[in-house]
């Protein structure tokens, strides 16, 4: 049973780095693989496919409380020029191209401010809670 935790965001842009903080604070555990990514790129799909469960951890300005929700595979809503793709898209690629049959989740972290050093208090609190949630989740 392997769990893949993927933190998304730019650790040098304030709260955008919240997800990275979460995986740094989680203790290593057998069967748990963590990855920090600036952005999601398609070649992550094969790695996702090898896991039984995958959790994408991402900052979300619309989140109030950290949560771990099931994530459905699916295409994003038109991203014509972007050089990165979304978690839903990675899951879809992993499923359609590499036979991923596991479950995917999204852990959203409440954030407020991307133009600062380090995390805002709101993000900091969210990170703490998310670490707790993920510890439970892994167990």
């Amino acid at each position, binding site marked *: 049973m392997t769990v893949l935790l993927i933190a998304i965001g730019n650790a040098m*842009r304030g709260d955008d780095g919240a997800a990275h903080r979460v995986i740094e604070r989680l203790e290593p555990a057998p069967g748990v693989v963590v990855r920090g990514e600036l952005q999601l790129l398609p*070649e992550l*799909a094969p790695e996702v496919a090898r896991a039984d469960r995958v959790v994408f951890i991402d900052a979300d300005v619309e989140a109030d409380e950290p949560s771990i929700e099931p994530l459905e595979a699916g295409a994003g809503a038109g*991203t014509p020029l972007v*050089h990165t793709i979304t978690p839903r*898209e990675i899951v879809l*690629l992993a499923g*359609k*191209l590499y036979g991923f049959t596991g479950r995917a989740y999204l852990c959203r972290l409440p954030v407020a401010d991307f133009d600062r050093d380090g995390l805002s208090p709101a993000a900091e609190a969210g990170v703490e809670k998310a670490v707790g949630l993920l510890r439970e989740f892994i167990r």
Partner: protein
Amino acid sequence: MPERIVIQPVTRIEGHAKISIYLDDDGAVSSAQFHVTEFRGFEKLCEGRPFHEMPGLMSRVCGICPVSHILASSKACDNLLGVEVPRTAVQQRRMVNLAQLVQSHALSFFHLSAPDLLLGMDAPPEKRNVFGLVERDAEFARRGIRLRQFGQRIIELVGGKRIHPSWGAPGGVLRAIGEAERDEIRGWIPEALESAEIAIGRLKGVLDSMAIEIEHLGNFPTLFLGLVSPEGGLEYYDGVIRIVDGEGNAVAEGLDPQRYLTYLGEASEEWSFMKFPYYKPLGYPGGKYRVGPLARMNVARFAGTPRADREMHEFKQRSQGAVCESFHYHLARLIEILHAIERIEEITQDPDLLGSNIRARAGQNRNEGIGCSEAPRGTLFHHYQVDDNGLVRSANLLIATSQNNLAMNLAVEQAARYFVSGRSLQEGMLNRVEAAIRCFDPCLSCSTHALGQMPLVVELRDAGGALLDRARRG
């Protein structure tokens, strides 16, 4: 009342972008602009730094093509030292540059453009994405991912890191590679070549159905500029600048990249942070030129590798003179992937690739250094002036995407004129206006040196400037 349409931000391109479409009193498109409204000022923060730090500093300009900036920067620094870089280092640099080209082009084609190209511009938006593509042909999509991995893996094997490798340095590179790395790279090649050829075949198969887009998405004569080898073949690392016009006639041959300021100028417009480079002898904006895959196909006479030569020969038959349809950037990109893989294979056969002499050492011997190489999106210049103690006094970066700026604006206007009508924005129209930009695969983080991601906004405005409709993507 004339009106204006704005598409902002051009969906999550690496930068902040906006398309404004102006309508005239009759509701027809009178003009369109592609704005970049983010400013980063990378040049400024280099001032006062020791030039030896520049390759590492410059790799931070962009998370998509750090290698290109490391290379141009290292070359500018080689220049300041006044040294000849050892062959082993040159071969490593060439290989990593080509690897970056493969991974960047593969992303552009398989993930950004292929859905439009292979599923059709009018396919429903929910299908017209990489997943529609996956539904259609999973094997093809897997090949796209593998091609990117091939490029990324080379960067990782040689540079030590996938993104922002600390590997390029003034005078050479920092790490030697061994047989194990070389053999792993070789192992990827047969599959990569096959994937590139399959992609080329697939794209050529649908071009006939795209006649209208080919005709109206940035089809106009401009100059084309790029590096070529002394013999006139495709060249990405070193060489001389060649400029051809829309008829394919040479406008300038054998220009020294070191003297770029004598033939390239940079204009500014108050509505965009992106600069507007032009070919000086023809003035601004008459001297507009394009760089990148299409330009390289037009300026080079041949590829110099067997498979790519075959494709390039056929490509050149598509037009009497130069191939002026921006739409053919896509095909040019795929031919370049093929060529790059062939070249990488050649380099892996060079015993000098594994040498241990990887860096020429010298003190500073010049106060001005210019480095030029071909980045995935076109010719890249880094130009530094340093004081006698090696501190950067000023830096100028001339980026591929900004060199295409005039042409991109023209392409947006042309597409808008043809495809946009009425006082509101419709999906198919928008998509084609965006597709005009996507031909160039712009990287706005490089060209404005902007931080983070930015979406695209399209605004439609009447002649009085009043906003009629607005669409936001990303």
